[in-house]
């Protein structure tokens, strides 16, 4: 493998943006038919580098050579012509177009301008079979789940005859068995001589799939290792990435008290058509307890969270601190101590085009120090924002920059800081460390642990099973809107939990739901 010719050679790549150096002197050799992983913190410059390689941005300095020929890309189409394909972290798919239309867009097989559906379908069916990437070609993308969308993205790239595949954080949105499927597809691709660039910050996965690993720190390549010949562990990689050890989500000792903070009885959420999304779910969370909900996305987690926040209509009874609050508005729930870390910070957590201190007031705009009950008090809010920035290590030039200028991890730290500052009694945390690098991740875990010790009740939803197992005191498995199993976080393994999430029970650490 090491002797294979170099498919992609990046030499001395520099890229500067106003005020930031995204890439400084990047050098990279990727060999044909190998999986080459690129790891680094959020904001280390991985994405910029890949955008340069894919023709979306031009490097200020440096050269790109594909299969030995130096190239200059003016647009993604140049990169596509050179055999490079990219699967973006945020899928680049049009929901209202069919799978087939999404794949052939831009390179449609035509006869005098008319799309030849049959040719496209034959070709795609063959590709899908060859690499085991099964998708329904005539469905709308809006009807499909995350795993299928990723397969569409890969097919899109293969359909264009790509021999070099860039995968940007491909496993961030997948559950364990989907990751396995992806990895087996990648092995097939590799066997066909396709070169894969795999960007990730999940180090275990990188070690499992990569032939070579390059580490990027602060915009530069700091090391390239070969995990097949050199002994390298996840801890070693983490140290190269951030200069510190890999954090773990472990909590020590139980802080669960017998004071029930929130008691959910027979919660149900229906679709407009009357189909249950959440089906008669009941649970209690005590002060100092973290209740984790495991489940493949789309099984009702988001609806439970929205129902508890009072954002969507639901039936059932909600007891909070001993009183029935089912009729409370979202505002009242917020004011009375509900903290909320939403699953999609771009959509629910932040106003991207607003300064940090305004974002800090969001959700707590009726409370001190943001308001005196009648008017907003920006001066106090700004001071408090500065405190959060300091305490929660939000890296930003000032509190007046727009939230969109922060990296994902720093945005998330701001949200966590905001929610913790209002002294919550009950916290809904949905994917609190999604898309966040190891440094920010361990900081967020620390804050959750600290809050738990001081008596906070937490509902934790996460697709990261290590996180779920490590932080939770109790784990319930949600499938099609119902709790189907309980898991003991002390004994259960991520593999067992992943299996239980798909509906298969009966293994150590997994019991039928109580």
């Amino acid at each position, binding site marked *: 493998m090491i002797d294979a010719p170099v498919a992609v050679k990046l030499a001395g790549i520099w890229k500067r943006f106003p005020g930031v150096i995204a890439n400084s002197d990047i050098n990279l050799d990727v060999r044909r038919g190998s999986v080459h992983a690129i790891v680094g913190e959020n904001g280390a410059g991985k994405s910029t580098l890949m955008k340069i390689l894919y023709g979306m941005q031009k490097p200020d300095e440096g050269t790109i050579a594909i299969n030995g020929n130096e190239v200059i890309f003016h647009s*993604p189409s140049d990169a596509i012509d050179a055999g490079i394909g990219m699967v973006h972290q*945020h899928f680049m798919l049009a*929901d*209202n177009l069919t799978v087939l*239309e999404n794949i*052939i*867009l831009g*390179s449609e097989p035509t006869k005098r301008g008319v799309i030849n559906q049959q040719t496209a379908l034959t070709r795609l069916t063959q590709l899908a079979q060859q690499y085991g990437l099964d998708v329904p070609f005539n469905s709308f993308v809006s009807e499909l789940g995350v795993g299928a969308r990723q397969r569409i993205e890969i097919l899109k790239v293969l359909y264009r005859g790509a021999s070099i595949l860039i995968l940007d954080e491909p496993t961030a949105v997948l559950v364990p068995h989907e990751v396995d499927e992806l990895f087996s597809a990648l092995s097939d691709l590799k066997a066909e001589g396709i070169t894969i660039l795999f960007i990730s910050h999940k180090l275990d996965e990188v070690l499992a799939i990569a032939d070579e690993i390059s580490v990027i720190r602060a915009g530069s390549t700091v090391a390239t290792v070969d995990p097949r010949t050199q002994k390298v562990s996840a801890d070693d990689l983490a140290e190269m990435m951030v200069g510190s050890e890999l954090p773990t989500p472990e909590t020590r000792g139980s802080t669960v008290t017998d004071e029930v903070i929130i008691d959910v009885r027979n919660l149900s959420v229906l679709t*407009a058509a009357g189909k249950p999304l959440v089906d008669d779910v009941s649970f209690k969370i005590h002060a100092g307890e973290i209740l984790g909900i495991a489940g493949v996305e789309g099984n009702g987690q988001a609806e439970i969270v929205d129902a508890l926040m009072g954002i969507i209509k639901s039936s059932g009874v909600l007891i909070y601190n001993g009183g029935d609050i089912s009729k409370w508005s979202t505002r009242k729930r917020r004011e009375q101590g509900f903290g909320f870390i939403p699953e999609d910070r771009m959509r629910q957590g932040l106003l991207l085009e607003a300064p940090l201190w305004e974002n800090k007031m969001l959700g707590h705009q009726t409370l001190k120090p943001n308001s005196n009950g009648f008017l907003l008090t920006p001066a106090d809010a700004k001071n408090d924002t500065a405190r959060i920035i300091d305490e929660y290590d939000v890296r930003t030039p000032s509190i007046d920059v727009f939230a969109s200028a922060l990296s994902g991890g720093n945005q998330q730290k701001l949200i966590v800081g905001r929610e913790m500052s209002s002294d919550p009694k009950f916290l809904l945390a949905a994917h609190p460390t999604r898309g966040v690098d190891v440094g920010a991740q361990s900081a967020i875990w620390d804050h959750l642990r600290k809050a738990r010790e001081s008596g906070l009740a937490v509902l934790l939803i996460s697709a990261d099973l290590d996180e779920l197992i490590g932080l939770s005191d109790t784990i319930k498995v949600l499938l099609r809107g119902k709790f189907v199993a309980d898991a003991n976080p002390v004994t259960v393994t991520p593999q067992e939990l992943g299996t239980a999430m798909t509906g298969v029970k009966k293994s150590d650490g997994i019991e039928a739901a109580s």
Partner: protein
Amino acid sequence: MNTKSPSIRIFAFFISAMTLLSISRIFADTNDLTSRGTMAAAFGLAVPIGLAGLGGLWSERAGIVNIGLEGMMILGTFGAGWAGWQWGPWAGVLGAVTFGMLGALLFAIVTVSFGVDQIIAGTAINILGLGLAQFLAKLAFSNAPGGGQSQSPPVKGLLPSVTIDFIADPLNTLQQKGWFVISDLAGMFSGLFYHLSYLTILTVILFVLTGWTLWRTSFGLRLRSAGESPSAAETLGVNVIRYKYIAVIISGSLAGLAGAYLAIVGTNVYRGGQTAGRGYIGLATMIFGNWRPMGTGIGATVFGYIDTLQLRDNANIRGLVLFGALVLIALAFLGLRSGVRATSLAFLIIGSALVGGFLASTNMAPEVAQVAPYVTTLLVLATASQRLRPPATAGMAYRKGESH
């Protein structure tokens, strides 16, 4: 509603609507409700609305909300009046299309290249189109024989129209028999082949061509992708900006053509205020039609039909009110069956009230009667809107290279 194919469903809806219309005709005792004359006039009024709607469809499919259709249509009426007066009707059509396109080009530069908010830019185009047309009309027509400050001299000659006698006449005879449903269908189809302007034929062709181009060709797929997910399209090498320009310019030329129909076929002159908000109604029919040509065409016909009846005698309006009431009641029963209770009850109450009004009066106050059809349309739209599938990025500014 269930597993039936879309074409069967549309056919079922069509036949049900005709049945209700037929019942209304019999109870309101007005044969004119579905006569050839009414239907032909309805199709005539539907053409400019439909063309405007089709213009909106092109533009929105590429992600640009074109609220400036009205202004482009006004420019079209001026172009038609001016060029038509000088060189005849076909030159008028060409003039209208050109003027509509110029308006659209300006709109495209502002919205696509500079990312100005599309609603604001569209409103500006409407104001500009109106003012510019008035100004140019003053310059061009004030001293012209037969013209005036806000009116052009007549267009030189008429656009030809055709009547296919051997289809239109027997159907017309059938319509006059007054048979349940059959006569109504006959009247409708007779109207389709009666005094048919070449522009109407062209409009039908343009509708079919639009559907075919947008959903069957690679050009169409790329254009739609610019409205659904421009960033995805860009990563696949589609020149999003170019497709948006093309779409907006086609949109403007269709709006111009709508103006041409009003000025050349409708009245034979350019006149200030001729468009009377049809650009906006066109936009509404496009939404009613779920951003698809077939639906837009049906929507335009419905609006054209309502318009026609208001111009005719009062008995027709009574018939129309009853028709609206029956539609609401029918929808209420459909809704109750699929469990949408609140809306259905509201429909039932309003529908019954309209039936009551119909029974209580032999001569309806024209104001009430004129509003009723629009109320019905609004209510129908309010329920239909939950199933609509608009282009995902319609109305959003797109800047190249901003994709993540």
